[in-house]
């Protein structure tokens, strides 16, 4: 009985924590972008403006729940839910601390990849059901980008999996007690990081939203609560990718002196800051440049990384 109670507490704790961190990330990004641009960012609501997120959420949730009359209503409503469910469900396999892990799946990495593929449906269906040209263009771009970047997102992780010999994220974290995976798998880390940027549709890879070309891309027709789902979904995605990078490449909860949870959150925090720095610094390339970069550079690089890692693992095993 107490085991079930602890499991329920962990599940809701992780769910709540993920949403809280995502909400905090919204505020943190706005402040940090301001800092990089020599401004202050939101600093009025509450201490350092932390209550700005609450103010924004109150505003967005009290807006009219409008559905475009030309939209395909059922799919239009379901689409924002899919992205939230798929990204939040991925948190189940992330070992946040030795005791805080919802489910220690032995195919944790595959589960994560499957869930991130699932998010493509949300974007594709949102653009399709909106029945407007900019939404459709945005979702076409999103699908093209996310499907092609997923290919080597998975491949870049296989080096880590080969080294550890397990798909379980807990095993991967425990195998990094001596040396973090980022050192032997540096290429894998770079490729996964770039693919993660593309999966969350962040700035150098934000062609699906491209506000200077496509209004808001696939969520042009969305407003109110449903828009908030996409908006929070993006930040949940950033948190998720940062946590995955920490788990896979930066030793997860491991670190001296401080408790595991603090280490994990600290590393996640630094990676989220890096995501925001990239947003502040880099422009958005053209669509064909994105795809040729992915297929012509990242894919061969990750295949090479996989081959070399496999060779070394095989040589060591002999």
């Amino acid at each position, binding site marked *: 009985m107490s085991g079930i109670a602890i499991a329920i507490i962990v599940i809701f704790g992780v769910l709540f924590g993920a949403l809280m961190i995502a909400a905090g990330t919204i505020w943190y990004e706005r402040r940090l972008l301001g800092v990089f641009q*020599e*401004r202050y960012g939101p600093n009025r609501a509450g201490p350092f403006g932390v209550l700005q997120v609450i103010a924004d959420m109150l505003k967005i949730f009290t807006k009219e729940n409008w559905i475009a009359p030309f939209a395909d209503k059922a799919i239009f409503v379901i689409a924002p839910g899919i992205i939230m469910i798929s990204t939040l469900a991925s948190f189940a396999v992330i070992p946040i601390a030795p005791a805080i892990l919802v489910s220690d799946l032995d195919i944790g990495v595959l589960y994560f990849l499957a869930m991130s593929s699932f998010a493509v449906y949300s974007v594709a269906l949102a653009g399709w059901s909106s029945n407007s040209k900019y939404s459709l263009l945005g979702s076409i771009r999103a699908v093209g980008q996310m499907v092609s970047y997923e290919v080597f997102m998975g491949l870049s992780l296989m080096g880590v999996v080969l080294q550890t010999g397990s798909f379980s994220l807990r095993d991967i974290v425990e195998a990094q007690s001596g040396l973090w995976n980022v050192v032997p798998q540096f290429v894998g880390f770079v490729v996964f990081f770039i693919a993660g940027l593309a999966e969350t549709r962040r700035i150098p890879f934000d062609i699906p939203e491209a506000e200077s070309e496509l209004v808001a891309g696939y969520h042009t027709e969305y407003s109110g609560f449903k828009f908030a789902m996409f908006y929070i979904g993006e930040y949940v995605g950033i948190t998720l990718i940062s946590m995955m990078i920490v788990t896979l490449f930066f030793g997860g909860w491991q670190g001296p002196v401080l408790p595991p949870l603090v280490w994990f959150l600290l590393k996640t925090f630094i990676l989220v800051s890096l995501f925001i720095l990239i947003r502040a610094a880099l422009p958005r390339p053209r669509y064909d440049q994105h795809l040729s970069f992915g297929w012509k550079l990242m894919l061969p690089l990750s295949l090479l990384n996989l081959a070399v890692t496999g060779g070394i693992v095989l040589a060591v095993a002999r």
Partner: protein
Amino acid sequence: MLGILNTMWVTFRHAFRRRVTVLYPERKRRLPARWRGRIVLTRDPDGEERCVACYLCSSVCPVACIALQAAIDEKGRRKPDFFRINFSRCIYCGLCEEACPTFAIQLTPDYEMAEYDRNNLVYEKEDLLISGTGKYPGYNFYRVSGMEISGKGKGEAENERPPVDVRSLLP
């Protein structure tokens, strides 16, 4: 690739620069004296209203936010009977100040005029009049103009000569 990293490094260094934002309600910028803000009506050094109700400001105003009515007071001077500026329309272009022949209407370095009620933005003469001379201390229109008013005949003002006797042939 190095270019991308360099861009990120440059952006990162900007985090330690001085902020350009002025945290407004706590800190205020020092405004120049010629700032075009709230419009006032000034008085001459004797404490009389400078405005002679010539309608030039009202006719030059591109958004037609100035309304006034001329009247003649007991000294025989033109004065505005009422003078009304609708600040919800005013664009603070300063054309009224340029048009004013008596330096009566002036723009001041004050911009904090927000109101909850729109009607409060309509300023009447008593709201506009200030007790001082504004930007031109010592200037008195009737002391330099050729106008005849009670207490001063034609040609008796500063830098003025008596009027030419047109019936005399002597130069």
